[in-house]
């Protein structure tokens, strides 16, 4: 049935998230002599790196992009693809609905495998023997409540267009044989039958491969699974009366304290120096408020004020988060994106003035 020697070295492209499962899936393929290259998709919602980059409190932690790190450990090339624009449709109109919070898990997986399918189809067309024969993922049946279930595995294969060129080495023996198995490119007997949320089999396999440094836990790499983040995104759509976003919008949802005192404006107030520096880069897009008479945060104004009272109120709120919060008055500067600025002096808002309902997220 299966043959040990193959005249052609078979090649696979693997979805590499940076977590343990995809790392193991690649390793299992490499053990069978398959040449693997990795692909990692940037959706805009990736947790990877961003909060590290922005927040100063994380400065002491070693920064690394896990997908790059995994690729280096495995000795494979990694293609990182920016799909943030195309991905909007997945987030806004998931055919299979949302999983936890605003995470369109099943549509997301279908989309990513579809992107990989387009890559292998193109490569087979243009690169001949240097093309890719199949796709590998680290999926495990039962691992994720929405996307990684026995019933959803064939849906992903079919709707992505990958069909039987999609191999899941960690749970393949629980699924019908795929093309690489039937053709003898890989030995089904040496694939795995992992299922469920128990991580012990993965840990044991990692140990067998001598892998002792990997990102934990598997998954959790997407901001859309986060309740607070999803609430901020929903709030953004509500305030704009339409469900749409730009990359800058979703970046800003990762940063600062978000307060919405009125439906038509929101304040994004930095919480520390790193966020301050990050928000600084957006002052050409948004009006901003900074303290003048004492050290304080930088706040962006998403929306606009309908009256001078609203402007004064916003200034008082920002003053509340400055070093001058206990003073009788604080002077602040309100600057428009074009650089035109004016100063106001206000009494900082008191704790009870900042209503809990204004907190977005």
């Amino acid at each position: 049935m299966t043959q040990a020697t193959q005249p052609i070295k078979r090649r696979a492209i693997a979805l590499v998230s940076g977590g343990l499962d995809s790392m193991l899936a690649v390793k299992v393929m490499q053990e069978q002599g398959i040449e693997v290259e990795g692909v990692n998709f940037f959706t805009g919602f990736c947790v990877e790196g961003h909060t590290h980059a922005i927040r100063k409190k994380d400065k002491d932690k070693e920064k690394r992009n896990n997908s790059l790190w995994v690729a280096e450990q495995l000795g494979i090339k990694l293609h990182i693809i920016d799909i943030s624009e195309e991905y909007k449709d997945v987030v806004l109109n998931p055919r299979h609905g949302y999983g936890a919070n605003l995470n369109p898990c099943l549509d997301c997986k279908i989309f990513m495998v579809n992107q990989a399918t387009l890559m292998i189809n193109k490569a087979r067309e243009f690169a001949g023997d240097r093309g890719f024969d199949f796709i590998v993922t680290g999926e495990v049946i039962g691992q994720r409540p929405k996307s990684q279930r026995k019933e959803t595995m064939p849906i992903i294969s079919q709707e992505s267009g990958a069909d039987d060129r999609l191999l899941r080495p960690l749970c393949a023996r629980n699924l019908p044989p795929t093309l690489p198995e039937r053709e003898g490119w890989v030995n089904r007997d040496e694939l795995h039958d992992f299922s469920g949320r128990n991580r012990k089999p993965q840990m044991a396999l990692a140990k067998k491969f001598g892998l002792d440094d990997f990102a934990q836990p598997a998954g959790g790499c997407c901001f859309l699974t986060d309740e607070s983040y999803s609430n901020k995104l929903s709030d953004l759509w509500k305030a704009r009366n339409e469900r749409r976003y730009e990359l800058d919008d979703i970046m800003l949802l990762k940063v600062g304290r978000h307060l919405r005192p009125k439906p038509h404006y929101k304040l994004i107030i930095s919480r520390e120096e790193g966020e301050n520096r990050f928000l600084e880069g957006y002052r050409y897009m948004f009006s901003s408020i900074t303290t003048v008479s004492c050290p304080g945060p930088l706040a962006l104004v998403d929306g606009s004020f309908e009256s001078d009272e609203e402007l004064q109120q916003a200034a008082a709120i920002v003053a509340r988060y400055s070093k001058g919060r206990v003073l009788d008055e604080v002077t602040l500067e309100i600057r428009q994106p074009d650089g035109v600025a004016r100063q106001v002096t206000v009494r900082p808002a008191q704790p009870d003035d900042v209503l809990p309902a204004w907190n977005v997220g």
Partner: protein
Amino acid sequence: MTDVIHDLDTRRLLCPMPVIKTQNKVRTLSTGDCLKVVCTDPGALNDIPAWCRINGHEVLETGEQGNECFVVLRVGEDNGALF
């Protein structure tokens, strides 16, 4: 003779975007070409060299100037263009 150094500005972008921009720029360059990438995300100082090691490009210099950092690399044998 000094090498021609191509420039890439990735200021304000957060990882992995500086890496993606670097990858896409390198695909348009030839073996031996040099590229200077300027960034404001300090994580790029780890990620771009890691990307270079994986893909066979040589890191010639890295450094920081105020809130900015930079990586100078030389394109290896394969510029990574897929097709």
